[in-house]
């Protein structure tokens, strides 16, 4: 009978129908629904930011991969290009791009005549202004590559001026041209007539990826070639230095080092190094590698060393985390059958930690690829037009880097450079995407082996 009174001790808890939710349940369900809504909202905000970023970059930058070109009928007169008349390469090379100025004028007039386009109301210079100042260099390169062409009239495709190029990309209109001292509405009409006649074409621009940077007044000729090579060289240096050093340090700290105050200090400092602003590494690089060690400025070797210092903490932290994640039973198993500490680490633990290590390394590399600030301090922001040589000598030649090139172009006045900068960002993003894909592929591959 005492049982019966005990069960009546909690009279509030009445048995209600399961078909209707009680107050507490409703409150809990509402809280859960709210939390889901917050989560969805957070993801939506993140996705929206990503979409806006991509759309703005792609809409501004994709056009830099296309460029307006003019096909000129160039009369390569022998008297101008080879005054000696003996086709000596040294003689031909002694004619500078200024010497090609009359050739260009003749070529433009020649081309208009052949295409049947009348130049009304425009001076010869204005008509010539449709062609990029880079054109003389393009023609000269062509002649130097093939001196046999001298004396003939050759069809050569040269760059159009960036303002004309802007007209075909919608950056310049008749209205803005009236207010612009660099381009006139008459020139735009002429360019339109040239396109109609088929001597001006807008097509894919390989030079944007392969060509070196160009000066402020010829954005149409600026390319990423030197920056891409510089970035690749630096990534090579970072990979070759940071991966072995970082992995060796992590293995020592995680598997061999005794637990004492000294290793604790090292551990804390490594974590702190990962949070040090990257520009500090730039100052360090400037002080140590350039001022003290005497390495050349603007060189990929210095950039690579600085970025190695910056990437090391990332790689060490990722490697230690993945070493920690290997179950201790595997170490026991190896030790239990008489493997030495080193055998157990290198035969069993390290292979299991490999996917994590590779992912960490590639993420560290990607971070280094996008790093700008330390490179500015060591002179990578210099204007470099010569391609660096093949490695290892090329590591010491001046070069630029992709993010620095972006920074550099956004500093310039000509709006054509804004388009170039966005295009460079697209190239950078493509590289990062490739690296991340590689990280995922490697991870899958190594995981499947086990």
């Amino acid at each position, binding site marked *: 009978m005492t049982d019966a009174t005990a069960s009546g001790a909690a009279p509030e808890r009445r048995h209600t129908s399961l078909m209707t939710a009680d107050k507490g349940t409703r409150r809990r369900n509402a809280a859960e629904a709210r939390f889901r809504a917050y989560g969805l909202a957070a993801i939506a905000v993140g996705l929206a930011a990503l979409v806006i970023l991509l759309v703005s970059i792609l809409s501004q930058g994709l056009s830099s991969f296309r460029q307006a070109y003019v096909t000129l009928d160039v009369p390569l007169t022998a008297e101008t290009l080879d005054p000696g008349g003996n086709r000596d390469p040294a003689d031909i090379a002694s004619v500078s791009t200024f010497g090609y100025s009359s050739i260009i004028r003749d070529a433009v007039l020649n081309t208009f005549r052949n295409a049947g386009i009348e130049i009304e109301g425009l001076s010869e210079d204005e008509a010539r202004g449709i062609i990029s100042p880079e054109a003389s260099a393009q023609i000269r390169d062509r002649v130097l590559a093939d001196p046999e062409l001298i004396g003939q009239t050759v069809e050569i495709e040269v760059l159009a001026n960036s303002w004309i190029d802007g007209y075909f990309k919608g950056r310049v209109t008749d209205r803005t041209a009236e207010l612009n001292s660099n381009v006139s509405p008459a020139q735009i009409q002429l360019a339109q007539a040239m396109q109609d006649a088929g001597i001006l074409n807008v097509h894919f621009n390989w030079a944007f990826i392969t060509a070196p940077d160009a000066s402020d007044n010829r954005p149409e000729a600026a390319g990423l070639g030197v920056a891409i090579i510089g970035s690749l060289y630096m990534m090579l240096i970072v990979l070759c230095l940071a991966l072995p050093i970082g992995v060796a340090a992590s293995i020592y700290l995680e598997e061999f080092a*005794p*637990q004492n105050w000294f290793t604790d200090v090292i551990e804390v400092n490594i974590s702190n190094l990962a949070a040090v602003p990257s520009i500090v590494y730039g100052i360090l690089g400037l002080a140590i590698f350039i001022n003290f060690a005497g390495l050349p400025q603007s060189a990929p070797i210095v950039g690579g060393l600085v970025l190695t210092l910056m990437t090391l903490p990332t790689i060490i932290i990722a490697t230690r985390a993945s070493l920690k994640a290997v*179950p201790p*039973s*595997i*170490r*026991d*198993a*190896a*030790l*239990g*059958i*008489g*493997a*030495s500490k080193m*055998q157990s680490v290198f*035969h*069993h633990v390290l292979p*299991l930690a490999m996917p994590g290590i590779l992912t960490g390394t590639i993420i560290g590399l990607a971070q280094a690829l996008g790093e700008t600030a330390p490179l500015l301090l060591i002179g990578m922001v210099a204007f470099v037009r010569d391609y660096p040589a093949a490695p290892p000598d090329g590591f010491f030649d001046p070069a630029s880097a992709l993010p620095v090139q972006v920074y550099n172009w956004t500093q310039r006045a000509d709006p054509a450079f804004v388009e170039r900068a966005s295009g460079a960002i697209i190239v950078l993003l493509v590289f990062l995407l490739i690296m991340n894909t590689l990280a995922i592929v490697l991870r899958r591959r190594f995981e499947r082996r*086990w």
Partner: protein
Amino acid sequence: MNDMRPLERIVDTDNVKIAAKNVQVYYGDTHAIKDVDVDILANTVTAFIGPSGCGKSTFLRCINRMNDTIDIARIEGNILLDGEDIYDKRVDPVQLRARVGMVFQKPNPFPKSIYDNVAYGPKIHGLARNKAELDEIVEKALRRGAIWDEVKDRLHASGTGLSGGQQQRLCIARAVATEPEVLLMDEPCSALDPIATAQVEELIDELKETYSVVIVTHSMQQAARVSQKTAFFHLGNLVEYGDTGDIFNTPQDQRTESYITGRIG
């Protein structure tokens, strides 16, 4: 019956494989093993029983110096393997572990092929001169592990793809492949079902022909079934050590009797 008392026990010293004298183990400030004296005989299965946390696994791990991997563990006293102190400064634990193999509580095959699991020990100890010899060692070990028939057609499949019982027998095969003299087993059947347990127990019985086997177990039935000698640990002390039949039928110590009859532990 008095000769079953630890101090009065007379052992044939020729037959002693491992002699522990006055062993103390500390984990930091915790005194985990107190004054343990035990002689483990060759070609015998010795069972360590006792409630959880009584130190039997700790003592087992002292025998092949696996406690070295724990920074805060400190061991005093002597453990002699064939009369040589294994804690002598000149002893390399790696060499010791090749002679004193270990099977762990949870099956822990390497995430490699079955073949590589067994071949790993012989390879690092240089027991095989060529592939044919290695094949032979692997087959012999797998046969001794009573798993050969089940895996002979898939030697290059992953060891982690086997069932729990198979994995444990693979681990035993891996341990015997290095030709140890003593085999330590830390609750080898705790993760296994009764059928797999029976297979492993049968295996232990066969292994004692070649090795001295020390097994830690929570199952008193198992200790009674497989062992010839039993040691009862309680709170870090070795309470009683003797022939298995005597320990289970006529325990001398009150605590042993309480544990065996299920009143403590």
